[in-house]
């Protein structure tokens, strides 16, 4: 059920920015941006619109990546007054430590956790569970949800729900679940899977993959009770404006921060 009572925890709306070498990639067509590639300006714009949290996914491939990530996190932390997560290329405690000290509120790990599940335990022990998001990319193979790596290209031997439960027991503070079957379709979130996962864990779940219109956000919160919903292109291209989305959610009696 939704938390409808006075003082209920608000459902979070989370724009996700892909960053490469310190610049956002993928087109962004906000009309009033001076520089659509500047992640900090974009982040500031989203925070002004009422985004509750931001995720930066760093896809930098150079060996300088940690340095560029740290610089990005510092700039964001200086300018932005809402929480933010950084993911991509975090493989060891030292990566996470550098990002924490640069001002990141949370980190998101994906492939590194699948390859070395003990990394979740180590990060949770070092920094607290609230700092550790485990991102899971899932795709159906023969009617079974299987964890995939590299944006859905590589199948693993892990069944999605059991991996998520393992991640929780190891110290994940939050799960970011992306359905690769729904991602990019704009046909709505994978509500069946999200409900199964959300009902099976006691940590917050962020829904990702498939958002195409405002009703999709209403549906995911009504049907699954996940804590947050993440999207990228529908926000970047202005197809959904966050103030409109929040208004729609509120009209549907979903607790949001206006």
């Amino acid at each position, binding site marked *: 059920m939704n938390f409808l009572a006075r003082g209920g*925890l608000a459902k979070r709306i989370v724009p996700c920015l892909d960053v490469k070498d310190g610049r956002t990639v993928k087109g962004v067509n906000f009309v009033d941006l001076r520089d659509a590639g500047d992640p900090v300006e974009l982040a500031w714009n989203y925070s002004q619109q009422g985004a*509750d949290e931001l995720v930066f996914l760093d896809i930098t491939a150079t060996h300088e990546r940690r340095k560029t990530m740290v610089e990005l996190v510092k700039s964001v932390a200086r300018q932005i*007054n809402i929480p933010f997560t950084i993911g991509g290329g975090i493989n060891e405690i030292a990566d996470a430590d550098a990002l924490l000290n640069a*001002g990141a509120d949370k980190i998101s790990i994906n492939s590194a956790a699948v390859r070395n599940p003990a990394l979740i335990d180590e990060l949770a022990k070092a920094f607290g569970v609230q700092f550790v998001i485990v991102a899971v990319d899932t795709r159906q193979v023969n009617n079974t949800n299987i964890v995939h790596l590299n944006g859905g290209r590589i199948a693993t031997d892990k069944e999605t729900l059991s991996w998520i439960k393992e991640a929780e027991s190891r110290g994940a503070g939050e799960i970011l679940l992306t359905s690769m079957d729904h991602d990019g379709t704009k046909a709505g979130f994978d509500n069946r899977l999200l409900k199964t996962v959300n009902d099976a864990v*006691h940590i917050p779940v962020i829904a990702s993959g498939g958002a195409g219109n405002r009703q999709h956000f209403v549906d995911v919160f009504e049907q699954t009770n996940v804590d*947050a919903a993440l999207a990228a292109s529908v926000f970047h291209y202005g197809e959904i404006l966050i103030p409109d989305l929040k208004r729609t959610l509120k009209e549907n009696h979903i607790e949001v921060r206006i």
Partner: protein
Amino acid sequence: MEINERPDSEIVSSSPFREPGGIGIVRYGAGNIFSLTSALDRLGLSYGMIHTKADFDQYDRYIIPGVGHAGTAMNKLQQTGLVPAIKALQKPTLGICVGMQLMTAYSEEGDADLLNIFPNKTLKFKDSDTYKVPHTGWNQVFQETENPLFADIPTGAHFYYVHSYYIEYNDLYTLASTDYSLKYSASIWHNNFYGVQFHPEKSGVYGETLLKNFSNL
């Protein structure tokens, strides 16, 4: 694993007003303060770091930050030798998150005796199927007592929380409350001591308003 903190030499107030006054941030090795100092920078508020008893004299108000484990944080605070000075402070003092919990008498986290500036206890949220722990995200803050700390902040405004332990509601000390499985203290107040469980440095415009209000107390 010990978290490496940024050396204080890297944290420099950008405010041009570095004469006495401003906010002293109590440093005791419990967590990162970059987001807090960034918020103070954005607001143009002057601040510096407190490591020794003598440092308290340089400032006209204080913040006790804190994240992580309350019992561990209390041990670290005790190692600094600053505890008697903190308990004797007469100027406005704001505890944030675990920094506020330290001002209570006791925490279930680590079964720890704390500063006892407030007689309240810090308790763990009960496991429940309905309410996930840690309490993570934006929740509403309802003012219970009129106080300038919440000036220009509408009652019911959302603030950002990340915590598994809470301070019990108390008629005498609760300045503002939040509901999450039960009604607890979002903010406490006694004489010159204030505490907030949420993170004002991450709570959007209202969080910045609260920090500004604190600087004017």
